[in-house]
């Protein structure tokens, strides 16, 4: 193919991790996402380690989702060793997870995505002209960080969550603090949703697709055992290899997921598409009054859904903080030393699956399948469609097309550090 024009960005800005994008415009239009982030082989790093150490290594996969990369392997390990954690542990872990959702979404929206919407290079310059908007973002981010600091010991690479429970339980007064703060930031969360109401989604990326999400244990949660698809099919996590397959592209250290042989999507939009009836409170009200902003066929909708989720998770954290009375309890120690376990949760960017095999307390096999790896092919298709749509509609400004393509990519909130860890062959 003769390439007429090329859009090439070796190092995409405002995403987590290192990736580039190339769009070639010729007789046809091609796009590819080069994942240049070096491979880190976590599946091998955790092998031959005691499960406690392995669980401490996993969060280092990614800082933005270090909580999911801690709590999901913990659950897989506990499943393998038949550890049944207490209700209190489950609650606190959920709160911790929700805190991460709020922080991650806030960071992504305010630091990475919203500058695109307002035409800035970065949040720093945007903050000068939109200080209130930026303050909302920082408040939300700080709230999420606070929840993680209190329950998880810190917001990046939490060490307090351990197999069987927690190293140290939060104090009741700290829970009170979370509750108080939650009520303080809820308006900022609603304002975030409202921000997106001023924007229309570019129609070039409209495309029917499958959305995969968890079937939550309770409410619009992040824990579950089953995965549902928007085509109506569902399967349990231990069957993940039967339905989610991967291939490798020579231009990417990330593997690339397919569901039933087709690219698919995971993330906030996929969760709303599949589980919207589980939303409650303000988030539900906002969804009902602005349901036209949830478009299953348009990935830009993901940002709106993230904003909606921030509202939901903050309200949920407040509700949980209201009800929980911390009582002293010890970590549950496993009786077993061997086993095989699976876990699936909803990380901010979508489904996260862990599979472990343990022999005599030692990890013999670990597999991690991350959301970014799952949606990478779909993201590539959307990026291509964006370029094609613009080009065919007469836009010849390559820079502008490039910017819009980047916007498509950012809408997904890809986590490149995560993406280079996927199903092993």
């Amino acid at each position, binding site marked *: 193919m003769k390439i007429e024009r090329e859009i090439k960005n070796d190092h995409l800005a405002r995403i987590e991790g290192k990736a580039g994008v190339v769009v070639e415009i010729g007789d046809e239009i091609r796009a590819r996402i080069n994942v240049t982030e070096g491979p880190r082989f*976590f599946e091998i790093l955790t092998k031959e380690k005691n499960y406690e150490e392995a669980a401490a290594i996993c969060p280092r996969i*990614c800082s933005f989702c270090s909580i999911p990369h801690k709590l999901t392997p913990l659950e897989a390990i506990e499943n393998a060793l038949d550890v049944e954690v207490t209700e209190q542990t489950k609650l606190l872990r959920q709160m911790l997870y929700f805190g991460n959702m709020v922080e991650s979404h806030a960071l992504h929206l305010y630091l990475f995505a919203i500058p695109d919407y307002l035409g800035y290079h970065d949040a720093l310059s945007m903050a000068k002209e939109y200080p209130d908007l930026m303050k909302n973002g920082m408040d939300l981010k700080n709230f999420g960080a606070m929840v993680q600091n209190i329950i998880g010991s810190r917001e990046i690479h939490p060490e307090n969550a351990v197999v069987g429970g927690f190293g140290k339980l939060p104090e009741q007064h700290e829970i009170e603090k979370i509750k108080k703060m939650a009520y303080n930031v809820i308006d900022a969360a609603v304002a975030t949703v409202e921000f997106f109401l001023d924007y229309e989604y570019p129609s070039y990326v409209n495309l029917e697709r499958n959305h995969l999400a968890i079937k939550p244990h309770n409410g619009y949660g992040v824990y579950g055992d089953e995965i549902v698809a928007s085509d109506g099919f569902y399967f349990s996590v231990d069957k993940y290899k039967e339905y989610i397959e991967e291939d490798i592209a*020579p231009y990417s250290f990330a593997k690339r997921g397919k569901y039933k042989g087709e690219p698919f999507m995971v993330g906030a939009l996929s969760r709303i598409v599949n589980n919207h009836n589980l939303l409650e409170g303000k988030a539900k009200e906002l969804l009902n009054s602005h349901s036209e902003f949830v478009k299953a066929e348009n990935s830009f909708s993901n940002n709106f859904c993230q904003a909606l989720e921030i509202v939901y998770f903050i309200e949920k954290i407040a509700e949980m903080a209201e009800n929980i009375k911390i009582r002293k309890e010890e970590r549950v120690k496993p009786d077993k030393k061997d086993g095989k376990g699976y876990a699936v949760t909803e990380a901010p960017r979508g489904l996260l699956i862990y599979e472990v095999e343990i022999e005599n307390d030692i990890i013999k096999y670990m597999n991690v399948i991350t959301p970014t790896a799952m949606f990478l092919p779909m993201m590539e298709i959307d990026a291509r469609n964006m370029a094609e749509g613009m080009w065919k509609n007469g836009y010849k400004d390559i820079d502008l097309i490039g910017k819009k393509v980047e916007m498509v990519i950012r809408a997904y909130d890809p986590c490149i550090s995560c993406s280079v860890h996927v199903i092993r062959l």
Partner: protein
Amino acid sequence: MKLRIGIHGLTSCYGCQLRMASVRELLEVAENFEIAYWYMVSSKGEISHVDIAFVEGSVSTAKDEEELKKIRENADVLVAVGSCAIYGGVQGMLFGKEYEEIFKEVYGDNKIEFEGRIGEPLKKYVKVDYNLPGCPPEEEEIIYYLATFAIGSYPEEKDYPVCTECRRKGYPCVLIEKNEPCLGPLTVAGCDARCPGYNVACIGCRGPLPHGIAWFDSLAKTFKEKGMSKEYIKARMEIFGKQYEKMDEMIEKVFEDED
């Protein structure tokens, strides 16, 4: 006078940059600093001459090396940020193994056009002026480093262990009390012993002490006396210490008599 700074990530979890992006003062009191490039946060700017470059991550691809060298050429001062940059990070654990074998185990017979390698610290490739340790670094230390540069000086790096901060905080010692494999005695301080404060044994995420004073041998001996196996001790110590010079040797020495 504004200091021109650049912030860059090689292969890593991006946590150090995220931590830096969470430093309110860095974003708000920006008048001291001009950020020349920071891909994670801004689509403006590219690697160019700066007074100080902060680099997180390990060198894990040919592209990483190329970028790092370019950063070094353009920076008066280069700061290695975080465990990956200083010691290779958790991925540095594979040090000593064959890249091709590891690659094959994960990617099979597929070929990828970028050249990957086992993660290594920055100092293997370029001169590093200062280390800002942590996984990720603490906000207080990030501010301290920036502030000392801002007044035309430079930071004093800590050379004492987490243990000390644990005692200063008055936390119970998990190593003495619970016989847990705490790496606090050989891990560089700065976190105020966060994990022991949560009853969790230190895993050494800030990396071993500099200047050859991380006594893996003495600690391994104590662990051994507590009944831990050589394999276990090694596996735990290497998570953040694999590329510390002589770590393996020091542990081997303790078990020499038995082998």
